[in-house]
């Protein structure tokens, strides 16, 4: 056991970079998967709709931790050695994809049907119809809940610590094992998460209020 020094707090702050990076990667991956899931969910093909619904149900109906374990050990079985970092990024992306898919489906379906009919009657095919007419309008509605989900995502990255990826929480555990000052260390770790998440929470609330005002008129 050794004493806690100032450099230990720098160690935690540096570890927080990995939390941020993992959050960004998971958000990017989750956005791609989520958009695909949202579009499949409202597709005209029944098989696609069912696949998307099943995907969402499975990822929302089981614990994220179990999903991370399955990706971590499952990739190994398939012959890919992803390691903790890529497993965590992939697992979090799949999970985020399910949640973002459901959020974005709601936003897309809130775009008035007349817009789609008008685009169709102008002869726009699927891609330009979605890309130029529907999605830009859905974006406005999607932003506040997406920012709110970002908070969840940042917090979820802490579970990567359990499969052994050294991000903020894991760094806190390591530091605690060496110095045994759990109250101070996990308090600091919590504070860093709070500093990361609080602005997102505030932004989400603010954006929601603005949107509600815009729609009241």
């Amino acid at each position, binding site marked *: 056991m050794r004493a806690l020094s100032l450099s230990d707090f720098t160690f935690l702050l540096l570890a927080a970079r990995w939390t941020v990076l993992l959050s960004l990667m998971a958000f990017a991956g989750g956005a791609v998967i989520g958009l695909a899931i949202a579009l499949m969910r409202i597709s005209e093909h029944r098989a696609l709709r069912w696949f998307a619904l099943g995907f969402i149900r499975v990822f929302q109906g089981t*614990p994220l931790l179990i999903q991370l374990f399955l990706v971590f050990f499952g990739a190994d079985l398939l012959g890919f050695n992803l390691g903790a970092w890529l497993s965590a990024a992939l697992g979090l992306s799949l999970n985020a994809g399910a949640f973002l898919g459901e959020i974005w489906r709601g936003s897309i379906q809130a775009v008035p049907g007349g817009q789609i009919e008008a685009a169709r009657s102008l002869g726009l095919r699927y891609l330009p119809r979605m890309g130029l007419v529907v999605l830009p309008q859905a974006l406005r509605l999607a932003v506040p809940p997406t920012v709110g989900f970002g908070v969840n995502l940042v*917090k979820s990255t802490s579970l990567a610590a359990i499969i052994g990826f050294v991000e903020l929480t894991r760094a806190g555990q390591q530091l605690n094992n060496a110095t045994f000052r759990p*109250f101070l260390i996990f308090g600091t770790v919590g504070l860093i998460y709070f500093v990361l998440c609080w602005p997102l929470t505030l932004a989400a609330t603010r954006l929601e209020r603005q949107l509600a005002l815009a729609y009241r008129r």
Partner: protein
Amino acid sequence: MGYVFQFGEMWAASDEFVDGALATLRLSALSMVLTLGLSILGALVRTSGPKPARALIVGYVEVIRNTPLLVQIFFIFFGLPSFGIRLSADTGALIALTLNGTAYTIEIVRAGIESIGAGQSEAATALGLRKLQVFRLIVMPQALRVIVPPLGSQFILLMLNSSIASAIAADELTSAALNIQGRTFRAFESFIVAGVIYFVLSLAFSGAFSLLERAAFGRIKTR
């Protein structure tokens, strides 16, 4: 890929899975009951308590909602003993899950209370009911209609989140799966089985909540 799934060893460990599932059920059900009680109390203080108490609740809700459950579990389980409060892993997990869940459900209950028009409590007060009677007999029964559906989803999340308690080896399903995979080296199978059990549990909870909702409020939704 050349991997051969072997669920035989999982079948041999079925007792452990069942015990784990029951432990998860126990942990989450107990936490749900505590969460429900605390969040009604918290929402009551948040909406009509003295100002410093209100601020305290707001602070608690924001701190919990903007930090990860895993860190909260570590903070409680490893941090409290330095103040002489020793907790078993199970108790630590129960406290952490309850404190975490309550921060979310306080907001749900508060939104429900605030959705009931002020005229209701004014009328009740005019009829001579005391403050607590107004809340218990007039506001809460109406607010429950708004509260119960999101509360159900939050409780299912609580049950799924209880898997994180495996990080401090509390008695529950994910810990059981970790033990089984440690012994059999069949990691994938262990977590598949655990995942299926969690999925069934979440379906069961959501079924139970909608039955409860229907029994309490009837088929027709007033809207």
